[in-house]
């Protein structure tokens, strides 16, 4: 009976990957909250999340460095899987259908679709720009070492990069938590169902089934 295998699951992220992802995610929330507070008065109330304006100013850059370091580890894990492949082009043409949830006969893709890859590369680029520009505007430690115009340009680069990153993460959170049912489990418990894997990432699914990544259901329950 297929029923046994139905409850079997496929490992998508191991415990270390989940820990890494959520550490970055929690830091991102704190950084976005304090960064938006500095950016527009409409978001000033978010500075309370870090203990008020002064604490937000003090903590933001340190949290940023920590997030960057953890993100570098994460980015190295997923670098290869996010390289753009020939089938991504075909898949991209079906993006309007994908958005309308007309998923039938989508080209077979591997671990990530082109939307996920875009989120990945946007994150890589903006994180890079933000660590550099962030150091240039970091008071009281580094800003004094830079020319005033460098500080002004860095402030603009930092704000625009953050804006693009937050937009990408809004898409990422929406797709991962709400839109694609069954995806959140991949990052909370580490696994997805066979059907999920086969439906969304057929090439990855076949790759995984060739290996030892299928978790057998508990036998004695």
């Amino acid at each position, binding site marked *: 009976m*297929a029923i046994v*295998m139905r409850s079997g699951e496929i490992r998508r992220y191991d415990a270390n990957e989940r820990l890494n992802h959520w550490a970055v995610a929690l830091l991102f929330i704190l950084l976005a909250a304090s960064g938006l507070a500095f950016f527009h008065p409409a978001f000033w109330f978010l500075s309370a999340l870090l203990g008020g304006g002064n604490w937000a100013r003090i903590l933001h850059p340190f949290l940023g460095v920590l997030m960057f370091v953890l993100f570098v580890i994460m980015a190295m894990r997923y670098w290869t899987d996010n390289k753009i492949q020939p089938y991504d082009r075909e898949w991209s043409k079906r993006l309007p259908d994908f958005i309308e949830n007309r998923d039938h006969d989508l080209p077979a893709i591997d671990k990530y679709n082109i939307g996920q890859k875009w989120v990945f590369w946007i994150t890589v680029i903006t994180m890079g720009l933000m660590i550099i520009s962030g150091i240039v505007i970091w008071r*009281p430690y580094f800003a004094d070492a830079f020319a*005033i115009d460098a500080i002004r340009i860095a402030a*603009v680069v930092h704000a*625009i990069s953050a*804006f693009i990153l937050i937009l990408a993460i809004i898409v990422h959170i929406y797709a991962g938590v709400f839109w694609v049912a069954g995806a959140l489990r991949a990052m909370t418990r580490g696994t997805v169902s066979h*059907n999920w894997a*086969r439906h969304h990432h057929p090439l990855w699914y076949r790759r995984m*089934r060739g290996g030892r990544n299928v978790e057998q259901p508990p036998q004695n329950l």
Partner: protein
Amino acid sequence: MPSMQSLDVQMRSATTTATPQVRIAGEPVAKLIDISKCIGCKACQVACMQWNDLRDDIGTTVGVYDNPIDLTDQSWTVMRFAEVTAPDGPMAGQLEWLIRKDGCMHCEDPGCLKACPAPGAIVKYANGIVDFISENCIGCGYCIAGCPFNIPRISKKDNKAYKCSLCSDRVAVGMAPACVKTCPTGALQFGSKTDMVARGEKRVRDLNERGYQKAGLYNPAGVGGTHVMYVLQHADQPGLYNNLPTDPTISPWVGLWKGIAKPLMALTLGIAALGAFFHYVTRGPKEVDESVAAVDADGREVTRHDREV
């Protein structure tokens, strides 16, 4: 300086609602610095320290008259001495000593206030004085990026920004700023902006008659005019006066950052979050049919065709 409750507030940093301004606002004020009358005695620096309870560290002599060498959180005004060859006027070709009292210019369109992210950390009173309300300051240094005159300094002691307050506390109770009060030559004058412009222009005419053909009033339009103005003997070359900017404006980078980008980006983020929510309630989630096994008992994939039958 704590906010002067007796003064109306015309602009307030990081604030999108109305500022307190019910009073019969007094006239805009201004300080006029007549460089042609300054003898560089630094009495204004001493008066500033005395009134504002500031004491800078004892510095090191580096071979110039400037003392201290730069503005600091403790030195809100500094005399900047320039030895130049006079380009024109009665001293043309000879050594001329141009002594500029540096400090906050109190811009009509203050770049510091535009850049400041902390609500109420920088205010501009209805009388034109731009004041740092230190207890609201978070020490981010954005005011430094915003200022076209390189004025604000962050204290190493409390990480808050400081600069000349134009003695807003004295002005609030009808007194002239401490520096003006103490100036022995009348190089510093204080009053309504209209009066100070008139006096400045009169002085410029005097200087013109005395051979300073290029004398002029420094009240730069790029920042909407300033509430601290200079009478310059060589107004065509403000750079002679220790690099006083010729046409100061808020940097276009700061304009982009705290101008158009600010509302546009905040709005776009809101629309994106709302768009995601509306997508969910109209298109719904992508659900995978779990009622049929993906693989059969032998581990073979169940094809789509099999499932649809």
